[in-house]
């Protein structure tokens, strides 16, 4: 039997609460932050050997923060009143985001053992809210991949089927949330790295409007595309977390100056009546798995029943988006990753023989420190930016980017929110696309346009595909700065779907090594 806390909530139940539910129980004194944090640490100890979502577990600090929250609550008064709503609610952080006191690897050997001397802005904001940080989650090296198989520290596995990928690059954050190892996580999304893992693990993931959340302290892959966002089990939880991490940051010049809208209120609106929801003609149908298409159609049906107006829009330039993305992203990445040279921090490898020049030390370090996918993108990007090729590649890609933005503008003239499947397929088996980069890249076809245009996107669970019983993601897209619409529509669709399923989709996930008696006793 699992240990009971005084008010009778088992650890098993505790870890399955949404962040909002946990926050309510913490505020009501039904559980303590230490109990909640310990329950998650126990869950990590029990199941992460199978899932490999975490690269680093930050137990001591997390428990200390939780204890501090409990002490403040117990003391009462103004300080307790001032506690953030999510104070004491634990969170996992993608290991692309720098943290004082824990290693940050970016999933790469080149940063093995490196500790950041500073906190990312989003981490500062988590600390200000007194949210215990459980640890750092696995990812494709430097966020380059769609399966988390490109991590230098071994792949993360999908809690729905341990032989399948959890999506990528943020497979660690999505799997941690799906496996109840954390109620919340941070991800980063450059071409779908929050949303596609969300889709294939049955979780909620949001890529905010570009500039809505500070990038300061997120190790850059492609600066003009990267965005930090929430990974959660409910739409409301994403809104709550977005509200914590979002808003202007003077250290990020691309951060939007205006204050965030009330995203939590948007998630609680509760209706979609009269909203025009646009199906993007180019982002479903051919190339999409039948089960994915079916669940997508179910979602449309529910939204229609709830009073939304479903319209069809066309975004003809989306067909070029993937190609443009795979020029812009590697171009920026080739420059962003130049700093990893063994001179100032991280791995340093000396050439085995020959002269010990700086160029050769840099070369040996980068040859040993970077994995194949990273090298592939650096080479692609270096080529695309080269004199004589710049106009044909980088220049053309930027033009496509403008065309994609115009497609969105035209589409948003006809619809308030756009909708599509998040990914063309459910989770594929580990190893299946590892040797076929192009097939891997195609998995991001529906998520990439939002990054190119800077518009926000949300993926939420749409049910299980008929043919394989694996989660399908539904993607909602809104105009830039209109993130609130995603939370409004997403929360309504979520509640309609859960009513249909009789509970959260994750309740249907197969049991992993549950919090067992042994691990409880080992505590």
């Amino acid at each position, binding site marked *: 039997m699992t240990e009971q806390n005084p008010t009778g909530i088992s650890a098993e139940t505790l870890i399955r609460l949404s962040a909002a539910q946990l926050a309510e129980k913490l505020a009501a004194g039904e559980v303590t932050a230490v109990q909640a944090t310990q329950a998650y640490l126990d869950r990590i100890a029990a199941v992460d050997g199978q899932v490999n979502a975490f690269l680093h577990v930050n137990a001591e600090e997390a428990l200390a923060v939780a204890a501090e929250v409990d002490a403040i609550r117990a003391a009462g008064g103004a300080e307790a009143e001032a506690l953030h709503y999510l104070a004491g609610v634990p969170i996992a952080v993608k290991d692309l985001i720098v943290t004082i006191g824990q290693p940050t690897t970016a999933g790469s050997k080149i940063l093995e053992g490196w500790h950041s001397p*500073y906190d990312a802005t989003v981490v500062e904001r988590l600390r200000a809210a007194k949210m215990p940080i459980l640890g750092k989650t696995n990812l494709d090296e430097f966020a380059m991949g769609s399966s988390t198989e490109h991590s230098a520290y071994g792949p993360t596995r999908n809690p729905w089927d341990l032989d399948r990928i959890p999506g990528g690059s943020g497979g660690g954050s999505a799997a941690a949330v799906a496996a109840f190892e954390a109620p919340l996580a941070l991800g980063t999304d450059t071409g779908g790295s929050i949303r596609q893992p969300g889709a294939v693990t049955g979780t909620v993931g949001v890529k905010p409007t570009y500039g809505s959340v500070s990038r300061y302290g997120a*190790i850059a892959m492609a600066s003009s595309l990267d965005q930090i966002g929430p990974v959660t089990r409910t739409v409301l939880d994403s809104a709550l977390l977005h509200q914590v991490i979002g808003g202007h940051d003077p250290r990020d010049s691309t951060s939007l100056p205006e204050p965030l809208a009330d995203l939590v209120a948007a998630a609680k609106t509760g209706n979609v009546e009269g909203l025009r929801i646009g199906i993007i003609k180019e982002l479903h149908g051919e190339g999409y798995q039948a089960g994915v298409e079916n669940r997508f159609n179910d979602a449309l049906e529910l939204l229609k029943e709830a009073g939304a107006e479903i319209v069809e829009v066309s975004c003809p330039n989306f067909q070029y988006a993937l190609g443009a993305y795979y020029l812009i992203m590697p171009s*920026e990445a080739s420059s962003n990753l130049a700093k990893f040279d063994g*001179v100032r921090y991280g791995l340093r490898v000396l050439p085995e023989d020959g002269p010990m020049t700086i160029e050769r030390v840099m070369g040996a370090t980068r040859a040993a420190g970077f994995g194949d996918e990273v090298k592939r993108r650096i080479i692609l990007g270096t080529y695309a930016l080269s004199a004589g090729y710049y106009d044909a590649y980088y220049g053309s890609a930027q033009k496509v980017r403008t065309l994609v933005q115009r497609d969105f503008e035209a589409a948003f003239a006809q619809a308030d929110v756009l909708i599509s499947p998040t990914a063309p397929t459910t989770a594929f088996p580990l190893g299946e696309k590892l040797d076929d980069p192009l097939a891997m890249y195609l998995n991001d076809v529906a998520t990439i346009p939002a990054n190119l245009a800077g518009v926000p996107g949300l993926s939420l669970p749409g049910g299980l595909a008929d043919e394989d019983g694996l989660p399908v993601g539904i993607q909602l897209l809104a105009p830039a700065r209109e993130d609130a619409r995603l939370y409004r529509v997403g929360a309504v669709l979520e509640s309609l779907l859960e009513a249909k399923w009789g509970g959260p989709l994750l309740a249907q996930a197969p049991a992993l090594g549950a919090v067992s008696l042994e691990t409880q006793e080992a505590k």
Partner: protein
Amino acid sequence: MSTDEILSFDEAMEKYDPVLGFEVHVELNTKTKMFSSAPNVFGDEPNTNVNEVDLGMPGVLPVVNKTAIESSIKIGLALNCTIAESCRFARKNYFYPDTPKNFQTSQYDEPIAYDGYLDIELEDGTVFRVEIERAHMEEDAGKLTHMGGATGRIQGADFSLVDYNRAGVPLVEIVTKPIEGAGSRAPELAKAYVAAIREIVKNLGVSDAKMERGNVRCDANVSLRPHGRERFGIRSETKNVNSLRAVEHAVRYEIQRHAAVLSSGNPVVQETRHWHEDTRTTTSGRPKSDADDYRYFPEPDLVPVVASREWVEELRATLPEPPAERRKRLKADWGYSDLEFRDVVNAGVLDEIEETIAAGASASVARKWWMGEIVGRAKAADVDPGQLGVQAATVVELSRMVEAGKINNKMASQVLDGVLAGEGTPEEIVEKRGLAVVSDDGPLLEAIDAALAAQPDVADKIRAGKVQAIGAIVGGVMKATRGQADAGRVKELILEKLGVTA
């Protein structure tokens, strides 16, 4: 070191027409760096004025320094440039350990200021217009020190040390259009151009403008073409020529070197050259072609810099008086003749004289000191007068001592030597060297009595009214007091003693 053949300058000029071009880097004196909040301070312990941004730590982002933009706009306006309404930074990608990100954030195809000009006045008053192509913003690199080699260069060094204090210091690079038509005055024009830039940025208050500290650094491009040919020759770029005299010498040397290469029928190699102050020659650096591929692309971490017309006009209104107009005003204020004033300008001591006057000296005294005493010493030491380290206050103190009769001019000159030798303040040196004019009448009267007794005939002549004969007695007194007597006072006392009124 250099084995390059050179032609005489006159011969080079007979055969060829020089075309010049300059890239002058100006370090701005902002409180913080171009893209980070670390202090922009010269001379501190290595790697102390750095934060995570300057070190290119993972995850960092740049933020543009608004004061640096203002300074850049001011420079652009002072150079009669158009100020871009919107402009961007780019990344210049290359691997080198003095560049922490392995790219330099620099403006590339969208400079903040472009299409300007500067009228340069040469020593004889001729005015030469230099067209400005652009002034753009960029960040400085760190400083490498190569250890263990004989030359201090990376070749042959055992290892190198890097100081990132300078990494990220804001720079404005001012690029001229090709300068044609200077002929044999090219070296002089080169010096005058860099002097004018230095003067402008100093006058604007946007840079400390100390060339010896690298606040103003000049890359000089030189090419030659036969007289009458329109097409430019192949250029060399002499890097980091960091004093006004060196600019003049380097341009002269490169003209002579190019002329020798071309005369022998060979092509000039397009390359960078290193300037050597000791030998006043250049040596080959690295080959430079227009095809160097820095893979420039717009810096995605920064938004465009937007300079509203209102802002530009606000800044224009704050601009100080331009140096040329200032010179006109100073000449009138000081009452110098054309020749006197030109000498002062050419000697490069305008600022020093202005400071000295501001510190309390009269215009004529300030000129006398700088032109009569200090400029000569600077020439002897082969440095610019400003570099000698003579403070305006020192000059004022010296001149006051002379006026008060405490020391005479000859002694003052000795005191100045003492100041330059680091012996202390003028007062301390007077004390230490025992230079004070003897003003105690007691010892003087004794010496006078002795001198009169030694030359009774002269004393008689003076008594008889031949006052001009007094020189011999004064000379005797001065000799007896080893020159430390105030000659005027000695004269007074002698006349008094002999009962003669002058």
